[in-house]
């Protein structure tokens, strides 16, 4: 373990076996200290950032039917939906009114939506809301759209980009190991197709992110493999601005089971920070972990709290519902001793916030 620690402090790369050992044998605080040292090296400014955003889930109709998902519906289901375009514009208008800068559109793999539907929608969004970053469509959706439209993935990305897609979120990565994917999401694209979309997006100049959903059926070495594959993709020209690990939420899903505990989350997060030192930002997931643990996560490798999420439907469908407004976000960050800053999707700082004084008899320092 001492060897592993000194390798990390010297900025040397770990082998898979060493990463696995950290994950399965190291004390939580040991992992935390290692991750925190990297986080402070990469982000010496003591800032913790967040983006004001909205997730618009344009449809819940999905052919993928992943077993861990509580959000999807069959086309004929009573509560299946496809949002009307005007409804989508209305939502973006509300986002802009709330000072938001990021739109994250994500939906099911709808059998009837070809590239023209997205092109028209993205063009109109860009025309009406040029200031909003259109950070939309995970690799599974892009691959699906390409298939429906008889296009190649590069051509699909090119056309979406021209229509107004600004960057690609890293959803649908789950665990990038096909044996796990066959078990939890047998109809979804395999890990190599996920990688292909991300590398092609990067080649065309689009920023991307990467996620990891852990705590379902993977083994610890699958989780390690995921991190090493993401690391490798970044080395091969990837454009990942951030990595976002979050834990499987079993409520209302076919797969069922338990969610990962707080300790398991912090360990996975810390290991992510340690292995992925070629990705600048690690996000804590308050949506799945709640505000208390997300705040603690800032000492276990996370330097960003993701979005305020005016709207979120996919995790909420599992019954896991945490709310966050800007005020609460600032309190969380300042309460942990960091300075809060609102950022864009691409991590440009828009404004920094000063810690508020408390009235009343406290000795809390300004």
């Amino acid at each position: 373990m001492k060897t592993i620690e000194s390798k990390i402090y010297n900025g040397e790369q770990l082998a898979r076996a060493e990463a696995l050992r950290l994950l399965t044998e190291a004390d939580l605080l040991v992992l935390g200290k290692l991750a925190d040292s990297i986080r402070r090296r990469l982000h010496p400014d003591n800032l913790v950032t967040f983006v004001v955003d909205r997730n618009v889930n344009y449809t819940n109709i999905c052919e993928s039917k992943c077993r861990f998902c509580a959000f999807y519906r069959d086309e004929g289901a009573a509560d299946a939906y496809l949002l009307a375009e005007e409804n989508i514009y209305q939502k973006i208008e509300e986002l802009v009114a709330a000072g938001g800068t990021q739109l994250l559109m994500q939906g099911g793999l709808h059998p009837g939506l070809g590239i023209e539907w997205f092109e028209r929608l993205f063009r109109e969004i860009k025309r009406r809301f040029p200031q909003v970053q259109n950070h939309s469509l995970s690799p599974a959706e892009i691959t699906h759209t390409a298939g429906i439209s008889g296009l190649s993935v590069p051509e699909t990305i090119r056309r979406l980009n021209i229509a107004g897609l600004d960057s690609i979120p890293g959803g649908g990565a789950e665990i990038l190991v096909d044996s796990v994917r066959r078990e939890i999401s047998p109809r979804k694209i395999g890990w190599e197709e996920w990688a292909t979309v991300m590398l092609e997006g990067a080649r065309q100049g689009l920023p991307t992110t990467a996620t990891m959903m852990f705590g379902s059926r993977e083994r610890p070495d699958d989780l390690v493999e995921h991190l090493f594959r993401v690391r490798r993709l970044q080395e091969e020209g990837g454009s990942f601005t951030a990595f976002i690990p979050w834990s499987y939420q079993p409520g209302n899903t076919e797969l069922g089971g338990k969610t990962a505990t707080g300790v398991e989350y912090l360990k996975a997060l810390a290991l992510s920070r340690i292995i992925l030192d070629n990705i600048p930002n690690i996000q804590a997931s308050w949506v799945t972990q709640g505000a208390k643990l997300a705040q603690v996560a800032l000492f276990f490798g996370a330097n960003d709290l993701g979005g305020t999420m005016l709207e979120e439907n996919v995790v909420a469908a599992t019954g896991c519902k945490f709310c966050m407004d800007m005020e609460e976000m600032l309190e969380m960050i300042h309460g942990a001793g960091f300075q809060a800053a609102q950022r864009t999707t691409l991590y440009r700082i828009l404004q920094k916030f000063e810690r508020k004084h408390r009235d009343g008899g406290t000795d809390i320092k300004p």
Partner: protein
Amino acid sequence: MATHASISGKVHAGERLTDDEALFLFESPDLLSIGELAALVNERRNGRRVFFNINRHINHTNICVNRCRFCAFSRTADAPGAYCLDLEEIRNRAVEAATQGATEIHIVGGLHPDLPFEFYLDLLRTVRAVSSALHIKAFTAVEIDYLAALAGLSVPETLSILREAGLGSLPGGGAEILRREVRDRLCPEKISGERWLTVMEEVHRAGLKSNATMLYGHLESHADRVDHMRRLRDLQDRTGGFQAFIPLAFQAGNNPLGHLKNPASGGVDDLKTLAIARIYLDNFANIKAYWVMLGEKIAQVSLAFGVNDLDGTVMEENIGHNAGAASPQAMGIDEIVNLIRKAGRLPVERDTLYNELKTY
């Protein structure tokens, strides 16, 4: 002038921290270093063992003559939702708990304006009659003070009678923040901090064990917290009667003080408070993370920050939940065991007096 290095040196040497040093740690942003020191202290005392028990809470009434500003549980007698359980109902709950393997019944309630002293004796006798294997941990120092006045007896005399009726030990509630300036704003009708300590001293002198709590994250300053812990440490030096220290995270829901929740108090403050308590309260055997108030995630993570006790299965918690606690109202044994194991620790079921019953 305290520094991390000087404090670390003292902790490694097993020396007691001063108030200034505890205050320094509260003001320090270095969560993980504080956690490491607390983990070291805990490791020396408890190794990898983490305690829990199988218990049930019974809150016999929510009718209370006090109006503590932080409390979302209390009602006046005529208010909607006011209740007082009768002895039959209490018996049923105790029977249910015994059937489910509970070893402890935890009883606290409001200061009811009309119930006679005999009710409390009947309450204890009723539970006692259900099973002699059930340890009765009942009545905070605030209730003991109230019952003594009700009976027109001294505290030692009152305790002696309650004990005969079945009282086994006392919980640690009602301590809130002991310092007068905070108490005057937080719970002006409640007994003073000095009185709370006096009652606890008499409890310990009577040969009964108790716990000690601290309600934090509202109006109090860090200095108030240190003052609180110093008074507990002093009393513990004299009596040794406290079993566990239990910091309680203030719940902001459904109460007049909700808006005064200290915004700086979140998961990081929870862990720091537990860790500093472990380091500073060197004469307390156990630091307990009460998952009802903290949530299971932070309670589990706190096992790496000096905590060695996760309380119990609880079964039907009311007080924290009336104040908006988001945790479940009970936890299964397998869930507690899973949390402890996944934290890399050894789950040990204990009884109320910290005798080890079973290792999982």
